[in-house]
């Protein structure tokens, strides 16, 4: 991955993703935090595209930037009397310390470990023009059972969410 476009795209998208993820912690308004989170999801979808994962990038935009963010805004709007500020708890400083330590550790591991990774020609060899067909085939073939379990999980979560918020006596 040496073409100039990939390099510029990677750094721009990485900056967007990390910067807006940091904004989620920094901003003081909960709705602004949701917006920063959506921006971070979009940057992440761009990073997925640079990894030639076109189907996952599309699913990321649909599910994360679309459905989950709408769900978050719904939750904020359904709790009108709760405070809308994005304040820190007593664990803010320990949380920052643990998060920073994890980030440093993972960065150190990423840079220091000699990953058995493909480079140059071998990497270009593995590039996918489009992944949708291959992912779809593996979902109904190799991972068919896991696919069924995931659909059952979604059904149970759907029924559970409805049962949780349903008013007593509602039909």
């Amino acid at each position, binding site marked *: 991955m040496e073409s100039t476009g990939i390099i510029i795209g990677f750094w721009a998208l990485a900056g967007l993703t990390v910067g807006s993820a940091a904004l989620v912690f920094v901003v003081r308004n909960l709705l602004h935090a949701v917006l920063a989170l959506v921006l971070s999801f979009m940057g992440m979808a761009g990073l997925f595209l640079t990894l030639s994962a076109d189907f996952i990038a599309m699913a990321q935009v649909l599910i994360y930037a679309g459905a989950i963010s709408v769900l978050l805004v719904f939750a904020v709007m359904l709790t009108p009397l709760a405070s809308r500020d994005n304040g820190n708890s007593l664990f803010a400083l320990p949380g920052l310390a643990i998060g920073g330590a994890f980030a440093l550790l993972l960065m150190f591991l990423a840079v220091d470990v000699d990953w*058995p990774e493909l480079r140059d020609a071998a990497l270009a060899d593995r590039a996918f023009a489009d992944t949708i067909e291959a*992912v779809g085939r593996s979902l109904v073939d190799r991972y068919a059972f896991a696919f069924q379990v995931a659909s059952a999980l979604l059904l149970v979560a759907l029924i559970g969410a409805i049962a949780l918020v349903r008013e007593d006596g509602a039909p």
Partner: protein
Amino acid sequence: MSLSVTLAHYLAVSGVVFGIGIAVALGKRNAIAVLMGVELMLNAANLALLAFSRFGAAFEAGDAPLAGHAFVVFVLTVAAAEAAVALAMAVLVYRHRETIELDRINLMRW
């Protein structure tokens, strides 16, 4: 120094986003903000999975070239289910307590 983008770059971005997710999940008072931190952490894991799927040479790709992609599809599914149930719980707690600030939800029963 070569400028090419390698596996380490993606893993570093994934690690930083994961750390921010931990900080948000541990350090925020609002239940919805905590959920946002969890989503960030799941997203960072997805990025690491896809990066390994693209760059990894540790195993023969052969018959399952996109195993990482299939795994990410399931992570997305579980994340969607988790968000729906967690937000339903937030709304339910709000009905009883009129707050979703986690440090004010400190009763085992009410």
